[in-house]
């Protein structure tokens, strides 16, 4: 009887040495004469424990981690193939508090299954949503998504059902489904983990979207910084075609749907939906003026649904379990769950999928375990490089789109980056402007020029050159960028800048000698 081992191929697990662990395990197994079968799963999301190796036993899957190659001989000697005791033994993942307290809906299969086994996918509930959708009318599918309360998980939180309804009502011989997999926000990796850990659910979500609006062609726009996700998606798409999940006759329904994978080229702005569409068309990724909405005039001028990976990957579950099931999670107008990502200076970094409503403090301390350095967490940036910096006084804010808007912050794509008390917030504010200057698409002046001027003004404030005058100037510049920019890049860059200035003014006043 051979033992089954799970060694993740998730990029973060690889970054922590999963491939070397795999080699050590293979070598040790042959030396010990043990027959083993290795499954390359996605990550369970407890990234501080990667590489996390699981062994299938009659009592369930027993986890060990973080495993380094030098630990492997000892693990074999201790009998870990039977789930025996060892200092690295963590027990069953499902029993670990970090995991057990989550609401794993969208990420239900990630880390559990073989990402590239359609059989595994079906056995764990895959394709049930699509099967239901194939029996429904387009209007019914759109209504189900609308009723679920699902909002765009890319960051803008626009109701998915309304977007779909607009595309459904648009008259055209050709419509497109575009998956925005240009996950560029620092502190976010949920799209990556999902694509690497359960790629078929994304394809299924795109298929349901296609049925909902009558589209026959889909595109996944993936950022080039994700080579591991790219290779998983390429394999998954090939398998989907080979098994008639994609192509001329989707699951024998007589309906056609094709998906092409397209790769970005390092432009942050292409995460903005209209820039992404221009990039897909083979142009510079510049923001378009809205209206027209992409749902009416999108890719190549045709009605287009463009949704984030997590949004699309959540749709199969909603179709399978019904709108009410999903809507019953959450608070206020934020329904369902959000896969949150704990990152930066945090002890227990990883993916936490929870219903909306828990507080930032619960996340940072109950899940995150405080900072990695052991020093106090001084600031957190939520929602990527365009998100506000929040001080400790705001840690009791519930994870909810409206609550965050209420403190001039945003949840965005759910990335949470923690900083300890060694952070210099004036430098973080400066970086926000510098990043905007580097990544601006250049179409509108407040963003293109304002960001460069912003760096200069912040430098003068830090150097104590006419500090109070320059502070007024910086606030004025931020107002112009906020109201005068075409998209969120220039429009939201003021958020990290002004929140840093508001909550951490002392960091801007470190240089006390006056410079003329």
């Amino acid at each position, binding site marked *: 009887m051979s033992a089954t081992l799970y060694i993740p191929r998730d990029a973060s697990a690889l970054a922590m040495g999963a491939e070397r662990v795999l080699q050590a395990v293979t070598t040790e197994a042959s030396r010990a004469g043990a027959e083993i079968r290795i499954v390359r799963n996605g990550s369970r999301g407890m990234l501080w424990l990667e590489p996390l190796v699981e062994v299938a036993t009659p009592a369930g899957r027993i986890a060990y981690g973080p495993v380094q190659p030098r630990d492997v001989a000892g693990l074999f000697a201790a009998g870990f193939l039977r789930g025996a005791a060892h200092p690295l033994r963590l027990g069953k993942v499902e029993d670990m508090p970090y995991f057990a307290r989550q609401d794993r809906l969208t990420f239900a299969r990630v880390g559990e299954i073989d990402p590239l086994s359609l059989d595994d996918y079906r056995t764990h509930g895959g394709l049930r949503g699509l099967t239901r959708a194939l029996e429904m009318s387009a209007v019914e599918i759109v209504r189900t998504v609308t009723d679920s309360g699902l909002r765009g998980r890319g960051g803008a939180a626009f109701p998915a059902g309304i977007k779909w309804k607009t595309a459904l009502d648009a008259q055209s011989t050709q419509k497109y489904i575009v998956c925005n997999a240009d996950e560029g926000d620092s502190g976010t990796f949920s799209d990556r983990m999902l694509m690497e850990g359960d790629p078929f659910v994304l394809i299924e979500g795109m298929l349901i979207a296609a049925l909902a609006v009558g589209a026959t062609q889909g595109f996944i726009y993936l950022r080039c*910084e994700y080579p591991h996700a790219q290779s998983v998606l390429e394999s998954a798409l090939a398998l989907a075609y080979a098994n008639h999940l994609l192509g001329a006759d989707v699951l024998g329904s007589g309906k056609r749907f094709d998906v092409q994978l397209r790769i970005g080229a390092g432009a942050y702005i292409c995460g903005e939906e209209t820039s992404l569409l221009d990039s897909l068309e083979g142009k510079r990724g510049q923001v378009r003026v809205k209206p027209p909405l992409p749902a009416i005039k999108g890719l190549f001028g045709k009605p287009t649904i463009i949704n984030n990976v997590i949004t699309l990957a959540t749709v199969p579950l909603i179709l399978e379990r019904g709108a009410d099931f999903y809507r019953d999670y959450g608070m206020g107008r934020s329904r369902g769950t959000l896969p949150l990502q704990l990152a930066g200076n945090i002890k227990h970094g990883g993916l936490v999928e929870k219903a909306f409503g828990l507080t930032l403090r619960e996340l940072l301390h109950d899940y995150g375990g405080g900072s990695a350095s052991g020093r106090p967490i001084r600031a957190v940036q939520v929602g990527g490089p365009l998100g506000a910096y929040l001080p400790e006084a705001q840690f009791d804010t519930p994870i909810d789109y409206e609550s965050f808007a209420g403190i001039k912050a945003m949840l965005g794509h759910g990335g949470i980056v923690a900083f300890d008390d060694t952070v210099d917030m004036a430098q973080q504010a400066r970086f926000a402007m510098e990043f905007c200057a580097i990544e601006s698409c250049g179409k509108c002046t407040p963003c293109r020029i304002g960001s460069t001027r912003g760096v200069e003004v912040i430098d003068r404030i830090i150097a104590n050159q006419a500090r109070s005058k320059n502070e007024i100037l910086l606030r004025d510049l931020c107002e112009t960028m906020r109201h005068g920019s075409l998209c969120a890049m220039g429009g939201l860059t003021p958020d990290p800048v002004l929140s840093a200035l508001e909550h951490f003014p002392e960091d801007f006043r470190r240089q006390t000698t006056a410079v003329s």
Partner: protein
Amino acid sequence: MSHFLEIPSRAAQPVAADELTSAQTGILDAILTEHRKLAGALMPVLHAIQKALGYVPPAAVPRIAHELNLSRAEVHGVISFYHYFRQQPAGRHTIYMCRAEACQAMGARALEAYAKKKLGVEFHETTPDGAFTLEPVYCLGNCACSPSVLIDGELHGRVSAQRFDELLEEST
């Protein structure tokens, strides 16, 4: 002396230093033939060229433009817009170093300074021996195990100065 508006004849123009070799031309033509029919073909074409040749030679631009029915300005505009596309060859190993906030929170600024000093180059530069090109990147999606570095397609997490040295050793 010719009038400044007079367009010099093709023969009078200096031969570009980076004229395509016949091998490069062959590869370029194969890529263009394969991708020409794709909707929005330019990005896949540029990726394929960079993958095959290591960069997108400026001398390839007129041919790409002609085959895809675009102007040379449009093609050049796209190449220069995206950080990832290179117009000159990189070193034998390319190091992408994350500069984004999650990595900053774990010491990426110090690591960046260390790497530049160690290699003796700034971002976008290649070491004199042609071994390493150092590039900045804004997020590798490894934000819970930062700071992160991607070398020749391999991702590395929790990279300290010492680990960076080891990675350089392992690359050569």
